C-alpha cells in the first residue's frame, strides 16, 4: 500500500517538475486556458466560462525582463511571474486574472496589460474587508460583472454550468481538507515535499482530474498502516506562497515533521465554507469571503495571532516556521501579533524570508536545523 501511495504522490510530483507542461498540453489539445495569480481568484466562474484555470507562481529563475518594469523591492512572486509572461512561457493562456489582494498584485494588472498584449487581463475587485453583508453585495455585483466579461468571450455562463463547477470545487476542497487531516494525525503519512506537490499540482491540473487522484490517494492512505514516528519535532509552516516544494522539503529534511500549514499554497487555499444558498453567484461570493482572511484582507475582530495559535495548537506543533516572501508587506504587518501570540503560549518560532525563484540556501538549512536542534535540546544542559 505504501508503494501505491508513493506512486500516486510521485505522479503529482512529476506534474510539478515542469509546472506549465500540463497547461501547455491542454492548450495543444484545444482547451482554453486562463492563468491567475492568487487563491482569491473565483476559479469556478472561470471554469464555468469554458477555461481551465491555472495558478501562476514564481517559476522563472530569471527576473531580468520583469526587473525593467517593476522595482526590485516588489516581491519575487510578482517579478518571477511577470518574467514568465515576458519570456513567452505563458503564451498558451488566453486570459490572465488578477484578484485584488495586495497592492503589488493589483498594480501588476496594469503592467501586465501594457506589456503582455497576447493575454487578455481581467481585474477582479475582491473586497479588502471580508466580514459583512455589504461586502457580499459588492462582491456579488463584481462577480456578475466578471461573468459578463467572460460570457462575451465565448458563450454566456449559465447558472447550471456554474452550479456544477461550485459542486466540483466544494468536493475538491473537502478532499484536500481530509488529506490535511490525515497528515495532521500522522505527519509521517505524507512527506512535506509530497504534500506540497499535491497542493501545487491542484493549481496546475483540471480540478476533476486532480480530485480523482486525491480520492485515490485518500483511499490508499486510509487502507495503509503507517507507523507514527514521534521522535521528531512537529512543525507548523506559516506564510503566503511557496512556488516549489524545495523550501518545505528542506524544513523537513532538517529533522522535523511538518504537521500542518496555513500557506496560501497550502491549507489556506482549501479553507472555504460553502453556504449552500441557491443563487450560484451569491454562493460564490459568500464562499470566497468565508476564507480565513489572509494578511492582505481584513475582517473586523479577527486576530491573526489567535488564529495562528489555534491552528498551531490543533496541529500539536512544537514550533512554527514562518516562510515569508521577501518584500511581502501584508505578512510583515501581521507578523508581530502572530509571533507574540505563539511566544505567550510557549511555542518557539523562526522567521525566514525567501525569494520564490531562488532555491533554499545553505544558510536557510542551517537556520532551520538550528531551530530543530533548539526544540530538541530545550531542556538539556551539559
Amino acid at each position, binding site marked *: 500500500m505504501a508503494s501505491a501511495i508513493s506512486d500516486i504522490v510521485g505522479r503529482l510530483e512529476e506534474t510539478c517538475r515542469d509546472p506549465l507542461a500540463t497547461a501547455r498540453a491542454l492548450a495543444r489539445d484545444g482547451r482554453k486556458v486562463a492563468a491567475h495569480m492568487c487563491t482569491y481568484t473565483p476559479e469556478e466562474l472561470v471554469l464555468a466560462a469554458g477555461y481551465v484555470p491555472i495558478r501562476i507562481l514564481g517559476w522563472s529563475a530569471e527576473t531580468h525582463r520583469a526587473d525593467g518594469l517593476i522595482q526590485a523591492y516588489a516581491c519575487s512572486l510578482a517579478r518571477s511571474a511577470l518574467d514568465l509572461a515576458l519570456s513567452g512561457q505563458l503564451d498558451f493562456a488566453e486570459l490572465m486574472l488578477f484578484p485584488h489582494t495586495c497592492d503589488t498584485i493589483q498594480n501588476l494588472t496594469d503592467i501586465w496589460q501594457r506589456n503582455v498584449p497576447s493575454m487578455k487581463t481581467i481585474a477582479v475587485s475582491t473586497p479588502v474587508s471580508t466580514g459583512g453583508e455589504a461586502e457580499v453585495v459588492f462582491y456579488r455585483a463584481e462577480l456578475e460583472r466578471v461573468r459578463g466579461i467572460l460570457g462575451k468571450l465565448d458563450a454566456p455562463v449559465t447558472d447550471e454550468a456554474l452550479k456544477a463547477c461550485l459542486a466540483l470545487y466544494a468536493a475538491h476542497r473537502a478532499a484536500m481538507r481530509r488529506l490535511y487531516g490525515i497528515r495532521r494525525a500522522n505527519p509521517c503519512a505524507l512527506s512535506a515535499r509530497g504534500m506540497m506537490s499535491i497542493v501545487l499540482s491542484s493549481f496546475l491540473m483540471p480540478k476533476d482530474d486532480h480530485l480523482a487522484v486525491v480520492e485515490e490517494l485518500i483511499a490508499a492512505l486510509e487502507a495503509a498502516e503507517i507507523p507514527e514516528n514521534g521522535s521528531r519535532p512537529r512543525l507548523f509552516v506559516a506564510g503566503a506562497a511557496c512556488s516549489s516544494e524545495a523550501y518545505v522539503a528542506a524544513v523537513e529534511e532538517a529533522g522535523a515533521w511538518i504537521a500542518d500549514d496555513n500557506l496560501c499554497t497550502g491549507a489556506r487555499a482549501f479553507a472555504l465554507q460553502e453556504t449552500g444558498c441557491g443563487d450560484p453567484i451569491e454562493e460564490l461570493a459568500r464562499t470566497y469571503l468565508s476564507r480565513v482572511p489572509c494578511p492582505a484582507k481584513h475582517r473586523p475582530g479577527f486576530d491573526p495571532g489567535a488564529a495562528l495559535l489555534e491552528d498551531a495548537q490543533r496541529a500539536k506543533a512544537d514550533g512554527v516556521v514562518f516562510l515569508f516572501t521577501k518584500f511581502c508587506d501584508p505578512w510583515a504587518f501581521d507578523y508581530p501579533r502572530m509571533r507574540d501570540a505563539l511566544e505567550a503560549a510557549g511555542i518557539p518560532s523562526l522567521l525566514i524570508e525567501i525569494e520564490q525563484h531562488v532555491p533554499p540556501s545553505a544558510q536557510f538549512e*542551517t537556520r532551520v536545523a538550528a531551530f530543530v*536542534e533548539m526544540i530538541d535540546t530545550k531542556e538539556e544542559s551539559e
Partner: protein
Amino acid sequence: MTICAGIDAGSRAIKVVLVDAGTGDILGSGAQDQGVNQAMLARDLLDRLLDEVGGNGKSVSRIVATGYGRNLVRFADSTVTEITCHARGVRRLVPDAATIIEIGGQDSKLIRLNDKGAVRDFAMNDRCAAGTGRFLEVVATRLEVELDALGQLAAQSTEPAAISSMCVVFAETEIVGLLASGIAREDIVSGVQASIAKRVVAMAGRNVDEPVLFTGGVAMVPGMAAALEAALDHPVTIAPDPQITGALGAAILATQQ
C-alpha cells in the same frame, strides 16, 4: 585514551578540538585556513592534532562536524549546526553566559541561552556580508594593512568615519570616496568596526541579557569587542580562545552522543 573530536568547517578557517571521551577535558586544538577540499584539510588538521596528543585515528571514538561546510566533512559521524555548538562550547568555558555574539567569516549570529545553557532563541544576518568578518578583510585589503593591525589602527582614531552603506560592495565604494577626500585610515577602520557592530546589534533588538560573550574568528580582531560594547551599551567579554568555541561544542556533543 579515547578521544572525541569536534570539527568546525567555517567559511574562512577549519577548527578542530580534541577532548577526552570520558572526562570531556580539552586535549588539543588547532585552526587552519579554509580551502577547496575541506574534507582533506579537516582530516590533515585532525591527524596533526592527534599526533601532537599521542593519539591516532583508532583512538577517536566519535567525530561531530559543524560550520557551513559540515556536510562536506563526510568522515564525521554526525553534524550539528554551529548555533548549537557555540552554545555548548561557551557553556563549557563560561557557564553563566546568557548571550553569545558570534561573528565569523561570512555570517554573524546572536544566540540567547536559557539558564541551562541551551539555545533559547537565535538570529542570523540574512542580508549580506556587512556584519561579518568578510567586511574587515575587504577593508584591510583596500587600506593595505594586515587584518591583525586593524585594531591597533582603529585605536588611533580620533574621529571615526560614518559608514552608512548596508552592503559590503557599496561600503567599499564609500571607503574609496572617504580615502579620496583625505579621511585618515584609522578613522575609516574605526568607522567600519562600528558599522559591523551596529549590524550585529540590530539583530539583538532592545533586550540583551548579560553576560554577553563574543566568539568566532572576528573576536580575535582587536577593537571589535570595544565596538560591540559601544553599540550594544553592555559589557562584552571575549570568550577564551574564541575561534574554537564551535569546534569545542561539537567535541563535547560527540562525547554525549
